[in-house]
């Protein structure tokens, strides 16, 4: 397994090997699915959206619908305007979405299609919407694409009427529907009226009903996106994912924002709860406080299994930071924190976390890849890997347990229904981590050391 990966790390300047990111459009597509009645549309060659739908489907194991401008060579030379026009007409005719959310591709970006102009010129049926964002694949990553799509919705739709709706605008970050359900639970518990954009619950974690709905119940309502302009405040979860969108809403409609890390682990969830408490008049209700107490109880209980254990965490920047924060709270050492997404903020935020816990000797890298991560591990092994599916070859090559968290996870089921955020999500993380380490001990210890009590 991965037999050709040398231990010696050479400085690569051009070759990306085993990436820890993918391209913008898939993130934009995911974000657009979180709007009710929305058909995401890929402005480019049809292969892009085929790949993106495949990937999202494999992560969520639920239908993922999106259309394409189906560029041919001609369109690539002469511009994709006519393709887009045909596409939107066909889409409204046949699928009747409320809104089409167009994202670009490296193809249409390279030829320079002006989406603003194209959409302005388009005849859009009464009461329907076409919005867009630019997602050139050669910049950022799928996370950037997610951000750009959210920003796109805001730029097109959010409107300030001047009358506050007394709501919070919640930006969830690039998380699973299971996480978004957990947010809603916490906001409802704190009696904070809110609009969350996007909201993929009910879309990508839908029930089996015997009847497929192209536009299922879930997703942020268009009117709610419009109403974002009247929100009192934005809580932007996941600084690298959500802050730019919050900025856009601030710029457009003067909604102030608070940027928070993803509420993963105790302190980040506490921060989130305090932000909610600052907004509402409400005390944190007893059942949430009880959940928190249960979590802390578990953390103290399992600390002999987690303390001092070295973990390599890879994936999306906010997710990696969130997991690393919780790992530190468990007394673990996040030896390697790596994201494929570029951006210095990741590294400074990661280092700040390490400093806060006084942990030294760890590497934090943005714009990295799994080949490098594997080389690091070959040079100094870790006890645990946390990340998406693509780490499994490293896990097998080095005989390290892998806990699957983040995106994409295309070799397991059910995970996307289960939160990692909030106190409940941290309980899940704690159990997954403790079980992985304890299972490893049970399977790797000598027979005479197999323990009945642990």
């Amino acid at each position: 397994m991965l037999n050709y990966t040398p231990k010696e790390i050479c400085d690569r300047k051009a070759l990306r090997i085993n990436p820890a990111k993918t391209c913008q459009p898939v993130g934009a597509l995911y974000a657009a699915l979180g709007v009710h009645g929305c058909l995401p549309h890929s402005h480019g060659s049809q292969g892009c959206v085929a790949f993106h739908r495949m990937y999202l489907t494999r992560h969520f194991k639920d239908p993922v619908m999106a259309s394409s401008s189906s560029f041919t060579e001609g369109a690539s030379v002469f511009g994709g305007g006519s393709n887009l026009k045909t596409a939107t007409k066909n889409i409204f005719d046949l699928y009747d979405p409320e809104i089409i959310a167009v994202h670009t591709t490296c193809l249409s970006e390279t030829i320079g299609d002006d989406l603003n102009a194209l959409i302005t010129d388009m005849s859009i049926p009464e009461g329907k919407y076409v919005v867009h964002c630019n997602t050139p694949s050669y910049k950022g990553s799928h996370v950037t694409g997610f951000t750009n799509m959210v920003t796109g919705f805001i730029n097109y739709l959010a409107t300030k009427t001047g009358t506050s709706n007394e709501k919070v605008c919640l930006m969830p970050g690039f998380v699973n529907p299971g996480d978004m359900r957990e947010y809603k639970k916490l906001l409802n518990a704190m009696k904070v009226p809110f609009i969350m954009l996007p909201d993929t619950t009910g879309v990508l974690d839908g029930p089996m009903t015997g009847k497929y709905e192209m536009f299922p119940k879930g997703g942020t309502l268009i009117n709610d996106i419009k109403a974002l302009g009247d929100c009192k405040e934005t809580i932007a979860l996941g600084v690298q994912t959500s802050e730019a969108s919050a900025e856009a809403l601030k710029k457009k409609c003067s909604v102030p924002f608070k940027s928070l890390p993803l509420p993963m682990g105790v302190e980040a969830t506490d921060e989130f709860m305090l932000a909610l408490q600052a907004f509402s008049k409400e005390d944190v209700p007893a059942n949430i406080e009880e959940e928190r107490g249960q979590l802390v109880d578990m953390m103290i209980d399992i600390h002999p299994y987690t303390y001092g254990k070295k973990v390599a965490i890879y994936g999306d920047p906010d997710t990696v930071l969130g997991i690393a924060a919780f790992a530190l709270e468990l007394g673990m050492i996040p030896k390697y924190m790596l994201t494929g997404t570029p951006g210095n903020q990741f590294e400074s935020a990661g280092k700040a976390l390490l400093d806060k816990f006084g942990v030294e000797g760890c590497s934090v890298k943005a714009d990295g890849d799994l080949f490098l991560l594997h080389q690091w591990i070959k040079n100094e092994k870790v006890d645990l890997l946390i990340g998406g599916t693509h780490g499994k070859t490293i896990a097998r090559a080095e005989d390290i347990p892998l806990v699957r968290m983040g995106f994409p996870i295309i070799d397991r089921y059910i995970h996307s229904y289960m939160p990692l955020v909030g106190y409940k999500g941290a309980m899940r993380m704690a159990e997954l981590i403790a079980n992985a380490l304890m299972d490893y001990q049970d399977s790797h210890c000598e027979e005479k050391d197999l323990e009945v009590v642990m």
Partner: protein
Amino acid sequence: MASDLREKVLEKYSARVYKNRKEHVIAIGEGNPDTITANTRAIPGIITQRGCCYAGCKGVVLGPIKDAAIIVHGPIGCAFYAWGTRRHKAFADEKDGEKADCYLEYCFSTDMQEPDIVFGGEKKLKQAITEVIDIFHPAIVLICSTCPVGLIGDDIHAVAKWTEAEFGTKAIAFSCEGYKGVSQSAGHHIANNQLIRYIIGTGDKEPKTQYSVNLLGEYNIGGDGWEVERLLKRCGIEVVSVFTGGGSYRDLKNSHLAHLNLVQCHRSINYVAEMMQDKYGIDWLKVNFVGIESSAKSLRDIGEYFGDEELKARIEEVIADEIAAITDELDYYKSKLKGKSAALYVGGSRSHHYQLLLKDFGVRTVLAGYEFAHRDDYEGREVIPDIKPDADSKNIESIEVEPDPKYYKVLLTQEQKEKLLEKGVALNYYEGMFKGMEEGAIITDDLNHFETEEFLKVLKPDVFFSGIKDKFVTQKNGMLSRQLHSYDYSGPYAGFRGAITFGHDLVMGLYTPAWSYIRAPWQKVPSIQGTLGGEA
């Protein structure tokens, strides 16, 4: 009648779309002409399942070549999506002292950034090649371009030449930008062209036996190719190379020395088969190792081709033995499957092949379609002269080859070929999907999401064989869908044993108890039964 159903579905389209799609959707027989429009552009906005040229070239044909370092030149996405997702299995091995490494766990990309787009990416590509050679020392470097590369004018072919000059490492470039052609098919063609130009014919290792073959269009999904190789070896037939599942540059370069080409997936590889016939005189035989009857016939056809009685006897023995080993299970699965019906929408040849396997179990096909086929895949190669190239297909290079002065040789005389034909063995020919299909079956070329939903609603098959993008749509409607691209992570399905695995999986899917729980019991009974409580 099928034609009515067809009409009922298509009439929901706008006139323009209707006009286009009616040529792609036909009902077999019922007085309809068995002719179809295929390999034309998908309609923008109509949700197609098709992929792109890059997917056909890198994803399908080149991806499985295990000892090649395939660098995807472009932004990261295209490389990422084709990384480990297609289940074309392989492992590093040694053959006659020559190793073939296996790089399939690796994904190589130039991860182009904005400056590369603006200022050109050749420099980065060269650096990436330098690094891949430095770290991996691969036998061969393949370069695949993605959409922006063609637009910005990076000359990847020049970079390939530079690579060979600079490092002495074989390098081939594939201009398989996603926007080329109308589907994966363009990519197959582009890949095929370069294989014949730069790889086939460059080796000189002679087969060890009289009866040697190349296995063309076998991608070893779920281990299919390994199972076919096992069968061939049992029969005493030598496999020189596999295009390309589990295959290697090491073996492909010697493929021109084999005695016969076997073509499993006609669509993706027929160019190579044709060009090898023209250049090296090697006949090709359309085989199908999916299905019990089909596998037996394919083996027998090979025996007939070589005409050796001992070989033929051994083939009969193997067939008898393989079938004896599966009879009990076959009977069991047949008893669970007989009378069921299926719809199939897969890639280039599977929608045809799997109908035959389904027939082995008594399952009827009510709808079938290809994602990226040409008319010959439907109607048989006899229609090729009638196919008019359109603008999109004209853009894909079609190369002519001459008989190779050194290697061209002919195994069978024209007379022998005619005798074979009399025995039902048609060389260098594919009959297409239509001929074997039942009256009234619906054929859908480039079946799209709308038609999928509508046809499944009216045809009500027990199972829809398709891909991951359709799967959960279908299953949300309470109907089993199994992926025939990836075998839903099972397999092999090829050969006799594979048929049983397929039967098992289908029975599992149809009979898994969970289907019976879709409706909650309170949805079946009057919902208000209570007598008290609950006003709180």
